[in-house]
Each structure stands twice: as structure tokens, then as C-alpha cells.
């Protein structure tokens, strides 16, 4: 029967429903600011929105989007290869390329379309994709579509990567290595200098997805590649507009002029309508703000440090390194669901992540910090977790 394979999900949803818990697809009924909303009928602090710089409610971005709607209408109604290339799309591409100090950029309608489309197109049958095991679903989806040989290396393990490149021998020159700047679930950063060293020794092409690190890492906010000082050795950088830039969309930039030809070979770019002019306009404004206001990044890291330190002080099993993504890992599913519900009752919305979206068999209470959070809000989030400990919902010695 066609639907049999979904039974496990139906059972899980029924289990959640029986407890009156709605963690997946929680409904935001009203947005009050970049950090507060009414979700599932309750006023909450938003601690799981990836809105790292808090720009989704910046009045300058909103004004840019409003002006664009007046000038360009609400949508392009067409592909970039047909009627959907407005001069605004090209300007955003030029500005992204300039930001990264390269000459070539492509923008996509979503971040998923960007990484999936690039991975599906850059390699093909007879070539190899060498993926970090914890890569995002969009990367795995692109890998499957590519027709290339797909090999995983152990997460953030450059020695394992080097070993696998060595095994490939001459085929390393036809291999695309794919890593992420900051990994979205645990907030850990790729060891890019060591990864580049392996590439230097054995060959290969390097693709870095900066979805969660653009605007977060690097002196200029360009991401993990900038922070590691390896910009001249990376072949492709992808990213998204839906996190630090507060909108939706994605991009890929490259120093290789061939990117301009590849543009015409990416299905997720060709066979979809281009980004709405509102989105392009707010993204352009947000990219300017990202560059002109480094104080946002400092505030983001102050907040990240405050939350990470606070949760560690409670003895909670947080991720391996300080990052704006602060995840509390729990082994037990019902305990994780109970904690998520208790946090909502305490006025804090976080992401509940279940395997296989989490990188292990653990369940995650995933927090993402914003520059727009006040210190008092961060303290409220910590207090909500302290409530979980006091109520015996998390036992720091047994969980994680």
C-alpha cells in the first residue's frame, strides 16, 4: 500500500497529538518583533529562528521591500532564464560577488535550491562527491540527483577526508568536497585549514556552505572561510538569505568564471520562478547592513556566549563549541518532548529536533541566538532551562 511507509510518522504525530504537543509546524499567530511572537496561542521569546542578526524586522529592510513592491510588483512570475531576471537580481549578484571578493555569483529562490542545485550540477556520473557525514539534507538531495559517486567522510575529520582522497588517487581531481561553515544542528565549525591542507595534498574541489556562518564568522562577516583565512583556496561558497539576512533565498559565489556557464545547467535555478523583488530588495539592504554594522556580530556573540555559558553552568549537555547555535542533546524522546512543552509553557520557543534530522540518535532542544535578543531575554531563556532542571525534566548526569 502506497501509504504504509509513512506509518511510522503517522504514529509519531499521533503520539504528539495525544499529548497536545505541536513542535513541528508550530503556528506563529503574531510576530511582535525579531525575538518575540505569539506561537501556538502563547507569547514566547523566539529562541529558534536562525535570525542571527535580527534583520527580519529591520525598518530599513522593510522599507526597501515596500518600495520594491511598489516599483516591481509582488513577484516575477518566471524563471531567471525567461522573464524572471530583473536588474535587481543582477545587482544583488554583483553585490554578493563583491562582498566575497570574487567575480561570479548566482542567486537562487531558496537556500535549499542553491546547495541542492549546485551539488547536483557541479559533478555528474563518473565523478565523485565527498561529503561530510553531517551535511544538510539539501546537500544529500543534490548528491543523489547528480549521478556522481557519493562518499561520506567522518564529520569534521580532516584525516578521514585525506584518507579517502588518497584512496581516490587520480580521481581526486574530479572530486567535489562539500562541507559547511557552521553545522546547523550542533553549531560546530568545520576545521577548514586542515580540510584545505588535505585538498592541497591530494587534489579536489572545495565547496563550503556558509548558511549558518555568513554574518556570524569572519572579521567582515563573510563566514567560516574568511575566519580560517583560506578564501583563495575555496572554489565555491554557498549561502542563504534566510538566516543572517532575514529573508529567503540562496546563492553561490565563485572565483571560477565557469560559474557563468554552469548557471544554465542548474535545474533548481532554471525550472523555478526567480525570487520576488521584495525579497531581493530587503536582502540587498540587509547585506549592506551586515557590512556596515559589525556591532551586530559582536552583540550576537555576546548573546551566544551568555546563553552557552548559562546552559553549561546548569550542567546541561550543550554542543562541543561556543556558537550562536546552542543545542541541548537528550537521549530520550519523551523526555525531549516534555522539555520542549515545558519551555513553551515558560514562554520560550526552541526547535525540537529528532533523528535523522539530528546528527546522532540524540534528540535536540536547539536554540539559535540573535543579535536582537536583549540580555534580559537571554537570561529568561536560561531561567526556563533552569526550570526544567528544577522540575526534574532534565537530569544533567543522565541525559545527553
Amino acid at each position: 500500500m502506497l501509504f504504509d511507509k509513512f506509518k511510522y510518522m503517522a504514529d509519531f504525530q499521533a503520539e504528539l497529538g495525544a499529548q497536545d504537543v505541536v513542535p513541528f509546524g508550530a503556528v506563529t499567530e503574531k510576530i511582535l518583533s525579531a525575538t518575540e511572537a505569539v506561537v501556538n496561542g502563547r507569547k514566547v521569546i523566539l529562541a529558534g529562528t536562525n535570525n542571527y542578526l535580527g534583520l527580519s524586522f529591520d525598518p530599513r529592510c522593510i522599507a526597501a521591500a515596500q518600495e520594491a513592491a511598489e516599483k516591481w510588483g509582488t513577484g516575477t512570475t518566471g524563471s531567471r532564464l525567461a522573464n524572471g531576471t530583473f536588474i535587481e537580481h543582477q545587482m544583488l549578484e554583483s553585490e554578493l560577488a563583491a562582498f566575497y571578493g570574487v567575480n561570479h555569483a548566482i542567486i537562487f529562490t531558496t537556500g535549499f535550491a542553491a546547495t541542492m542545485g549546485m551539488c547536483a550540477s557541479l559533478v555528474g556520473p563518473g565523478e565523485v562527491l565527498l561529503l561530510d557525514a553531517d551535511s544538510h539534507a539539501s546537500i544529500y538531495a543534490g548528491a543523489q540527483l547528480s549521478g556522481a559517486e557519493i562518499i561520506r567522510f567522518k564529520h569534521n575529520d580532516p584525516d578521514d577526508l585525506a584518507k579517502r582522497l588518497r584512496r581516490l588517487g587520480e580521481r581526486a581531481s574530479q572530486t567535489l568536497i562539500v562541507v559547511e561553515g557552521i553545522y546547523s544542528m550542533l553549531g560546530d565549525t568545520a576545521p577548514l585549514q586542515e580540510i584545505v591542507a588535505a585538498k592541497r595534498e591530494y587534489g579536489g574541489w572545495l565547496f563550503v556552505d556558509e548558511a549558518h556562518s555568513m554574518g556570524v564568522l569572519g572579521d567582515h562577516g563573510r563566514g567560516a572561510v574568511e575566519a580560517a583565512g583560506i578564501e583563495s583556496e575555496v572554489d565555491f561558497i554557498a549561502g542563504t538569505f534566510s538566516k543572517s539576512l532575514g529573508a529567503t533565498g540562496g546563492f553561490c559565489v565563485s572565483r571560477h568564471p565557469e560559474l557563468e556557464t554552469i548557471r544554465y545547467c542548474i535545474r533548481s535555478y532554471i525550472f523555478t520562478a526567480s525570487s520576488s523583488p521584495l525579497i531581493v530588495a530587503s536582502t540587498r539592504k540587509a547585506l549592506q547592513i551586515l557590512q556596515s554594522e559589525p556591532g551586530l556580530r559582536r552583540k550576537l556573540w555576546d548573546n551566544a556566549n551568555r546563553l552557552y555559558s548559562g546552559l553549561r553552568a546548569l550542567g546541561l549537555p550543550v554542543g562541543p563549541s561556543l556558537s550562536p547555535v546552542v543545542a541541548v542533546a537528550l537521549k530520550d524522546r519523551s523526555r525531549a518532548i516534555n522539555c520542549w512543552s515545558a519551555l513553551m509553557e515558560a514562554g520560550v520557543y526552541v526547535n525540537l529536533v529528532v533523528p535523522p534530522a539530528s546528527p546522532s540518535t540524540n534528540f535536540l532542544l536547539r536554540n539559535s541566538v540573535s543579535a536582537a535578543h536583549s540580555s534580559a531575554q537571554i537570561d529568561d531563556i536560561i531561567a526556563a532551562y533552569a526550570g526544567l532542571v528544577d522540575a526534574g525534566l532534565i537530569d544533567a548526569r543522565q541525559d545527553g
Partner: protein
Amino acid sequence: MAEYQEYLDFMYSVLEGHAKSGIVLSETTELVADIGLSSLEVMEFVEKIEDQFEISIPLNILPDVNTVGDFARKLRELDA
């Protein structure tokens, strides 16, 4: 390069820890249907084989692998 039987023997040794009591592992034992490996456990299983035999296993072969015997045959083909 390992032989078919070597792959089988190693897989049996790893899978013993996963198999429900009463299941006798053989070439026709199915990894998901009989042993109940989750997608994550399949990946961990792949990593253990890679480490043991110093090989990289392309994920592309997995859709054709149902049984322990299927997997051993695919690994022999990779060697060839």
C-alpha cells in the same frame, strides 16, 4: 582486497550486537526488515566496514543492498 567470506564474517560480527535474539544471521538476512537497522545505524554499519577494510563505500550502492549477502557481493564488485 578482501574475499566474499571475509566481508560476510565481519558483517556477522558487527550485526550480532544488533540482531534480536532468535535470529540466525545468514547471507539472506535483511539488514532493515530482519535486523531493523535504522538509516543512521546503516550509516554506522557502513563506516565500520570502511574502517575494517580500509575502503570507501559509495552510498550509491546501498539502494541495491537488502541482505548481508547483497552487501558482500557489492563490496567484491567494488574491489574488482
